[in-house]
C-alpha cells in the first residue's frame, strides 16, 4: 500500500482552540461585513427573483457592441453580456408587466434575427412569480435550518444544537456576503446551493460533535478545552479528506460543467470551505460557553 495518509498523523496534536479568539473575531467581523454588504449592496438577483426577460443567443460575425447598438435604440433597460465565449451572448431586459414581456421577446427576436445562429434559450419570469419564488426560497432555507436543528437536538444535547445554529448562521451569512462581493448571480440554483451547504456544514459539525460526545464519556477527567482539541484532532484527517474530495468534484463542475451551472458550483465551493472552517473553528469553541459534562449529572 502506498497510502499518503501516513503524512497526516493518526493522532495529530494541533491546538485549534488556542487560537479561538482570533478566529472568533475574524468570523464576527466577516458576518458584520456580510450584513452591511447585504443591506447596502445586496445580492445580484437573477431573473428568478427579480423578474424580467433573458434571451441567450449564439451569433455569427457579430460583436456584442453591434447587438447592443441595435437593441439599445429600442430598449433603454437592455443589458448584454458574453456568456462563456464571445459568440454566446446573454440579453437581459426588465419588464413591468406580463403582457409587455411576451411582446418584448418577439420584437427582440425580430430585431436581431439575421445576426443570430440559434436562440439557445429564452426565459421570462413575471413579477408575481419572482416574488413568490423568493418567498418560497426563504421558506425552504428556514424550514431546512429548523428541521436540521430539531434533528441535532434530538440526537445530541441542546448545547450541541446551539453550537450548530451558530455555525450554520455563520456559514449562510458569510457565504451570502461573499456572493455579494463577487457579484455572483443569485438564482433558484443558488438557493439550492445554500441549502446543500447547510446540510454539508452540519454534516461536518455532526462528525466532530459525535467525537466530542464519545470523548466526553471516555475521558471524564480531561479539561474541556483539551477534550475539544482532542476531538477535532481525532477527526481532522476525515474533515480534510472529505472537504478535498468534495472540492475536487465541485472544481471539476465549475470548470467543465458549463456556464449555466457555474454560479451554483462557485457558491458550493465557497460554502464548503466556509462550512469546513466553521465546524472546526466556530462550532466547537461555541461549546465552551457551556460548562457542561452531561456525564457528570448521570453519575
Amino acid at each position, binding site marked *: 500500500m502506498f497510502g499518503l*495518509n501516513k503524512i497526516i498523523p493518526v493522532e495529530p496534536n494541533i491546538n485549534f482552540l488556542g487560537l479561538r479568539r482570533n478566529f472568533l473575531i475574524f468570523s464576527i467581523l466577516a458576518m458584520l461585513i456580510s450584513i452591511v454588504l447585504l443591506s447596502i449592496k445586496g445580492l445580484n438577483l437573477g431573473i428568478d427573483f427579480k423578474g424580467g426577460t433573458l434571451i441567450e443567443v*449564439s451569433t455569427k460575425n457579430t460583436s456584442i457592441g453591434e447587438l447592443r447598438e441595435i437593441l439599445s435604440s429600442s430598449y433603454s433597460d437592455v443589458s448584454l453580456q458574453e456568456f462563456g465565449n464571445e459568440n454566446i451572448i446573454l440579453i437581459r431586459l426588465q419588464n413591468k408587466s406580463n*403582457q409587455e414581456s411576451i411582446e418584448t421577446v418577439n420584437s427582440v427576436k425580430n430585431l436581431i434575427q439575421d445576426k443570430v445562429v440559434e436562440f439557445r434559450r429564452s426565459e421570462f419570469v413575471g413579477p408575481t412569480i419572482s416574488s413568490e419564488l423568493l418567498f418560497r426560497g426563504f421558506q425552504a432555507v428556514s424550514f*431546512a435550518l429548523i428541521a436540521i436543528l430539531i434533528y441535532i437536538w434530538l440526537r445530541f444535547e441542546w448545547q450541541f444544537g446551539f453550537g450548530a445554529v451558530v455555525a450554520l448562521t455563520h456559514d449562510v451569512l458569510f457565504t451570502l456576503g461573499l456572493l455579494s462581493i463577487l457579484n455572483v448571480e443569485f438564482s433558484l440554483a443558488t438557493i*439550492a446551493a445554500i441549502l446543500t451547504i447547510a446540510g454539508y456544514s*452540519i454534516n461536518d459539525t455532526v462528525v466532530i460533535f459525535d467525537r466530542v460526545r464519545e470523548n466526553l464519556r471516555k475521558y471524564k477527567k480531561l479539561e474541556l478545552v483539551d477534550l475539544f482539541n482532542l476531538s477535532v484532532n*481525532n477527526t481532522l484527517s476525515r474533515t480534510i479528506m472529505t472537504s478535498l*474530495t468534495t472540492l475536487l*468534484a465541485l472544481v471539476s463542475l465549475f*470548470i467543465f460543467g458549463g456556464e449555466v451551472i457555474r454560479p451554483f458550483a462557485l457558491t458550493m465551493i465557497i460554502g464548503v470551505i466556509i462550512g469546513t472552517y466553521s465546524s472546526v473553528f466556530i462550532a466547537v469553541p461555541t461549546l465552551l460557553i457551556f460548562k457542561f459534562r452531561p456525564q457528570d449529572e448521570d453519575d
Partner: protein
Amino acid sequence: MKNYPIWKSFTVISLVLLGIIFAIPSIIYDENSENWFLKNKINLGLDLQGGSYLLLEVQLDVLYKEELDNFVDSVRLISRDQTVKIEKIDIKENEVVVFFSNKEKIKNIRDDFFQMYRGVTLQIISNKLSIQLNDEYRKIIQDSAIKQSLEIVRKRIDESGTKEPLIQRSGKKRILLQLPGVKDPERIKDLLGKTAKLTFHIVDSDSISALQNNLAPFGKIIVPDMYDENTKYLLDKRAVVGGENLVDAKGSFDQTEGHAVSFRFDTEGAQKFGKVTTNNIGKNLAVVLDGVVITAPRISSAITGGSGIITGNFNAQEASDLAVLLRAGALPAPLEIVEERSVGAGLGADSIAAGQIAAIIGMVLVCVFMILIYGTFGALANVSLIVNLFIIISLLGTIGATLTLPGIAGIVLTIGMAVDANVLIFERIKEESLKQTKVFQIVKNGFDRAMSTILDANITTLIAAVLLFAFGSGPIRGFSITLSLGVIASMFTALMLTNFLVYVYLSFANKKELKL
C-alpha cells in the same frame, strides 16, 4: 471466506448486479425503444432535451367582474317585472349595490334574485339591496373556470400537434405546461393567448345616436371592428348563438372571399341560427370574437342548414388557427403567461455534454486522490463509488425521475461527498489498528464505530434535500432527487459493499497485520 456470512455476500452481490443491470437502459438511451426493459431509462428534463415550460394564470378577476355584470342585468330584469324603479347601481369590487325608489317590493326582488343565483350574499338596508360575491361563490367560479380552462388548453395543445405535453393545475389559479421539443413556443402562446369566445349578434342600425355618443342603451353593446378600432357597431347584447353550439370548424378557401373558416352548428345551434336568420332578413349579423367584430354581413336569406363560413382578412395560417380555437372551444377567462422558460435543443445537448465531462473528470480526480491517500483501500472505495453512480442512474431510470441540469450537478456533488462514508470508516480502522492487532477485529470495530456517525451525517443532508424538494420548483427538484438518491446509495455502498470488498481483500491477501 471466513468472518463473513454467505447470505450477506449474496445480498450485496445481487444488489450491486441489479444496480448495474438497471442502469443499462439509461446508458444505452434508445429514445424510441418500446422494449419493456430499455424503456426504464432516465427522463431528460426540458432544460436538457430542449422544450418549453409555460405557467399560465387564469384571469379570475375578469370572471368575477363578468358575474357582477350579470347580477346587474338580472336585477334590472327582475325589477322591471316587479315594476320597481331603480335609482342607482353601484358596482364595487366584490359587490353590487342597487338603490330602489321605494322599499316595498324589495324583498320580492331579493327572493327572485336568490332563485337565480343561489349562494350569493344578499342584504337589504332600507331601500338598498346589496349583492355580494362571497368567498364560497368565488371558489365555485374559480374551480369550474380552472377545470374548464385545463380542458380547453389540453384540446388546443393536442390540436397543435405537440408530442407528449404535460398539462396540469398548479396552485389555486394556474396551469402548468411542459412542452418537450417545442423550441419556439410563439405559436402555442398565440393559441393560448385568445379566449376564443365566439358569438353571433344582430346589428342594431336604428339607434345611430347611441353609437355617436358611445353610450349603449340597456340591452345593447358597442363593439369595435377587428381591423379598424374607429369603426364601431351597436349590437344586441344577447347573443343569437355562440361558439358552444359549434360542432366543427375548418380553415377553408373561398374564391371570392379568400381564406375563411367554415363551421357547422349542432342541432340546437342550427335551429336558433335558422330562426334568427329567418326573422331578421335584411339586417346585419355580427360575428364577434373576443370582444371585436370580425365581420358583419347582411342576412340575405334564411340559413337553416346549420353551417356557414366566417370571412375576414385572414391568411391561411390565421384561418386554420382560428378553426383550431373554435373547435377546442372558448376559455372561460383569459390566460396570462406569468412564467416562461424555453431551451433550444442545442443548449440542452451542450449541457448534457458538459455535465458528463464534469462528472467523469470529477470522478477521476476523486479516485486518484483516494488511491493516493488510502492505497488499496482507496481502490476498494473507488469500486464502491463507481457502483454508487450506477445505482443512482438505475434508481433514476426505474422510478421514472426526471434528470435536469441541476440534477447533473447533484450527481457530480454526490461523487465528491459519497466517499465521505468510506473515509469515516477508514479513519476509524486506522485508529483501531493502533489499539489491537487482530485484522478482522480491527475492520469490524472500524465499521461498527463509524456507523452512527455516517447515519447522523447523512440524515442532515437528506433533510436539506427533502425540504428542497418540497419547496423547490422544476429543475431544482431534479437536484434534490439526485442528491437524496446519491446520499442513500452512498450509505449502502459504504456500509455494505466496501465492507464486503474489504473482507474479500483481507481474506485473499491473507494479511497478518493492518496498517492503513
